[in-house]
């Protein structure tokens, strides 16, 4: 299987003006897309995707997408924020240690209205805020990182037909690097799912 894909790629790279990136199939509504996604999944493709203007319910299952580990990572970041908040306040307000944090810094045990040096209850609000801050920053950062975004360009974005993916059309793309990708065979697979149109998307030669 790998050999076929390699052949396609090399011939395309040497002869044709533009290299094939993927085959793009267009559907008119979420129902058609969902049915098509199930068929494509069952054909055993790996590097393929659905493109929709809004999240379609049930598509994750139809595509066989594994649940993301994002929440677990965010929990770790939240725990780090919680610890950071506690350590920050204990260091600056409760003890007189000297440590190196870019510069040498020393804690300053304030005595404020007779409160104990280790006044944990008074430290809770800031601990809480930092927990939320770290979690939220990591949620957004990791979501983009795992999605390989931001991206300044992508071959699909140069395709005029694809502009409707953010409006009212539904697409399936199967990438040429997929081990099971064979242009005529894949095109036939896509047409068999009832696609309204199938188009080859090339990697821009400009």
């Amino acid at each position, binding site marked *: 299987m790998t050999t076929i894909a390699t052949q396609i790629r090399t011939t395309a790279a040497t002869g044709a003006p533009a290299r094939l990136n993927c085959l793009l199939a267009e559907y008119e509504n979420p129902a058609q897309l969902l049915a098509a996604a199930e068929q494509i999944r069952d054909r055993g493709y790996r590097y393929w995707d659905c*493109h929709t203007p809004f999240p379609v319910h049930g598509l994750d299952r139809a595509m066989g997408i594994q649940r993301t580990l994002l929440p677990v990572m965010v929990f770790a970041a939240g725990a780090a924020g919680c610890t950071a908040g506690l350590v920050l306040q204990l260091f600056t307000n409760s003890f007189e240690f000297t440590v190196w944090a870019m510069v040498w810094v020393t804690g300053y045990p304030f005595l404020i209205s007779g409160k104990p040096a280790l006044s944990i209850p008074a430290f809770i609000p800031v601990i809480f805020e930092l927990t939320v801050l770290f979690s939220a920053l990591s949620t957004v950062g990791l979501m983009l990182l795992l999605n390989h975004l931001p991206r300044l360009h992508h071959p699909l974005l140069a395709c005029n037909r694809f502009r409707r993916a953010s409006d009212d059309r539904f697409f399936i793309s199967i990438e040429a690097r997929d081990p099971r990708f064979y242009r005529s065979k894949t095109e036939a697979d896509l047409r068999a799912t009832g696609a309204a149109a199938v188009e080859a998307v090339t990697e821009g030669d400009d």
Partner: protein
Amino acid sequence: MHGFTEIDNTADTPGTRAPLVLGATRFHEVTATVCRPNESTRPPMAWTVMFVISLLLVMNLGFCVNYLIFTGVGVWGLNNPVMWAFDITNFVFWVGIGHAGTLISAILFLFRQKWRTGINRFAEAMTIFAVICAGLFPGIHVGRVWMAYWLFPIPNQMEMWPQFRSPLLWDVFAVSTYFTVSLMFWYVGLIPDLATMRDRAKGKVQQIAYGLFALGWRGSNRHWHRYERAYLLLAALSTPLVLSVHSVVSFDFATSQLPGWHTTIFPPYFVAGAIFSGFAMVVTLAVPARELFGLKNLITLRHLDNMNKVILVTGCMVGYAYGMEFFIAWYSGALYEKFAFMNRAFGQYAWAYWIMVSCNVITPQLFWSKTVRTSIPLMFILSLFVNVGMWFERFVIIVSSLANDFLPTSWDKFVPTWVDIGTMLGAFGLFGVLFLLFCRFLPMIAIAEVKAVMPQADPHWEGWQHGNGAGAHVAAAHEPGESGSRSA
């Protein structure tokens, strides 16, 4: 209203639910309706007029703030004992306004309230702009603004650290976290819609500008999967955050010893008041915006009706808190506490107190009537009353408690100067400029989210099942079931 008859979608018939999107039966119609104000070559006249007024107010704000910084906080009407007045009143007012945006975007999301999709985008924008206005006031109130970095734990030449046991410092962390998280939440929601704007852009400049901020979004379902998880997490994080922010703001007062401030009811009372004022501001902004930009099919009477119900409920909570404060003052038997509240209702600031009670407790009761809740002019006027009332609530709490404290010899009266008033109006101008720019350049309604709550978004929708491909002329009065929910 100008030839457009409001469609009443506020009533549910048993078994089906009234539609949230009127008129549009195709996804493209939603895109086109929302993008039209951004893509029109020139904004409506009313927009231009409002923008010029707001811009003048911002110039006035710049002047007042500079005058204050170059001269000192003495240019305000502050005195001893009234060391907090308009500045902190405005701060609390604007932070409070922001809370409705987060409530709509986060709490209603967790409760699966689908009607939130029509209003969440601009309610969140309102949050961000309100927090910007709020942040201005403590910033300039510190007097020597060039020392403002003392608020943050930055190593400095004095080898001193901020004092973390102070609620004022909690405020710094709470408000800055709130701003950061709200901004990210708003931006994450915007990404798919910015991609829509990018894909529709006719000009090169628009294409590049929207394209940059859309981050290369391609509507990939593998992306949507993580996106929805992230959105859910942000909602779950914002919910306790928004409750904490106004609680921390109330600690600024509640942890002090001053009668009238030293009350345990403050955190829930402040949060309820914040949501109350924020929803009123959403109605104040939504009514003209839907009129001006033709969004009546997306921000329907049902959305407004629901918001008015929230205003009614939170107004009653605030009224309860006002009553309970008086009860506790009497029940505690504390002389100073009793005086503080009698003074509030009948002392030198009694006029402000009664404005507050009229606008916050009495007039919102009209929302019990469905006629009032669904009348556009009436709800607009009532929401303005609430805005005024909630500004006065903060003024009353802050100034009346400070002006007449323990010792009659130290009593004084606060009179605002022109700088106080100019700065207050200037903040409204700043808010106006930011909001109007948002209306002009960004989609005011969450396009992707609105599409997702349409019955047609469900792959199992009856119209799709009968081979009715591109048709879908079936009326949208159909319960979308779980199809529109964003849970992954």
